[in-house]
């Protein structure tokens, strides 16, 4: 058996999301001129964070099922 691939994917994207959210919260609006005024770091960072956490959530759920 191999290990659960959802673990590294979940961790990686949670970290990516966190980095982008922190960056989005700490940078000024000027940075986002080319992205049509949208703070894409913050918005997309949140999306990545949710994706990563959902992956980890799946792992957590299937582990609990396996224990039962």
């Amino acid at each position, binding site marked *: 058996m191999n290990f659960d691939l959802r673990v590294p994917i979940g961790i990686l994207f949670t970290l990516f999301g966190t980095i*982008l959210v922190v960056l989005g919260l700490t940078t000024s609006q000027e940075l986002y001129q080319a992205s*049509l005024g949208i703070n894409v770091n913050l918005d997309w960072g949140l999306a990545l964070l949710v994706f990563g956490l959902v992956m980890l959530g799946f792992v957590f759920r299937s582990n609990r099922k396996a224990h039962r």
Partner: protein
Amino acid sequence: MPSFTRIHLGVADWLILILYFSFVVGIGVALKRRMRNSTDFFLSGHAIPAWIAGLAFLSANLGAQEVMGMAASGAKYGMMTAHFYWVGAVPAMVFVGVFMMPFYYGSKARSVPEYLKLRYDEKTRTFNAFSFAIMTVFSSGISMYAMAKLLNLLLGWNFNVSLWISAAIVLAYIFLGGLTSAIYNEVMQFFLIVLGFAPLVFLGLKDCGGWAGLVQRLNLVAGQSHNLQGQAYAGGAWVSTWRHMGTPGANPMGVEWFGMAMGLGFVLSFGYWCTDFLVVQRAMVAENETAARKVPLIAAVPKMLFPFLVILPGMIAIGLTYKSGQTGFALPVKGASYDYDMTIPLMLKHYFPTGLLGLGLTALMASFMSGMAGNVTAFNTVWTYDIYQNHIAKDKSDSHYLWMGRMATVGGILLSILTAYMAVHFNNIMDMLQLIFAFVNAPLFATFLLGMFWKRTTGHGAFFGLLSGTAAAALHHGLTVPIGAESLFKGGWIGHVLHVYPSEMAQNFWTAIWSWSTCFIVTILISLATRRTKSDEELRGLVYSLTERHAEGHLPWYKRPLYLGLVILAIAVVLNILFA
């Protein structure tokens, strides 16, 4: 010098880049202990869940060259590029899943050449194994070269350093974790590409003023008679897939519906998705036959949506070049035309702020590397099983072949590096080699189709059919040229031109059609004239009529490959109609 300024990476960009590649190598390290025998190393111990194998099946064909090439085609030909997906890839993927996987998986062959040995004979297998092994090394080398060149151009990184570091990363994770490592990384890369490029499409489309704004801009592009294809087209030529395919002259691709459907939809796509070991290997790793059949079907679902991720950016870029949006994005001029090939990197640079930019560039690099890794894993398997074990060292212990697999990985990567440096110095040799591979590959699908569905096909028939199909491809290419061909690599090298095609694409499609038909007919004729060497008993599990079907009646319809395949085809038809 490039006509654009270089990108400067910020701290966050570096952090994302380093984080990703430490995960990539980390996966290899974590898998090392699990590589106990050669089946683990070359076939992932037949223990990969279908969804992972499916995404890897898709990703193996999602190298950066494909991604950047699709965006370039999106700019040059518009929505018609989607034919590569909705007519080309998807039906072929359904076919390999529903009809061909049972023979690949059920025959217990460990590679595509090995299937040829079981079904036909040694010479057919060896021919296929050698041409495939050489081709994978060259593709991997060209991928390395393209990446190092891009990083040099875009970020100012040293060419040699980029080349050797990327080679070292790929080597590390395959050497340690074998095919499983490559597959796991392909799946990570799939998510990275989707999540890294999706905001690009969103921002680009918004910059155009939505879909309506894009259509309006592309109709403007179609109406222009200069710069692009040197000819004006009817409005809508860039946003429809089928409407302008009555004659080759009416659409920017220069192909009419028959050449497209037959050449691309049938010969080239089925040839690639059904016989290329690089992708087939990713279905062979599944846990059981039903799972293996589902692998290409699972891959087909996201594949259908990929035009929106990889072709749309090209359409957006060319639209904005002709009529500026709010942010002033435009493709730079290159020669008499635009620098299409750089569409994706230039859009990343333009729209993404530091942070997201790191994610986008990481996605691009990851897809270059998984392009190499896919080729290297296919190479080490074919080398070890079909060439080394078969011709050099028979009857060694399994651990010996596991060792050989690791050595073949090192060797394959060193040869790829050599190829990359060759590409730097002799561009023409690369063009010529790619052409030869195209000739070798074009007829292959006829050999497999006849082998799997007609038990009368003989080894001699298959072998000489393949040779004559390759010869037919070379002959057709030598006697025809696309309009405006300036080198003999584009065709007409025999010196006497019989036909001029309106585009290179049209010439490629017809080369494939001639080659496939020749192989098909010659294989049948020679098979009828030669004696069968394999009995029905020996062909059990290799030929459709001699293989008992697994009962799937107990499975609900949505778990049966045939029904899943039909649903996927129906969705593809709907997409074709929506964007006709």
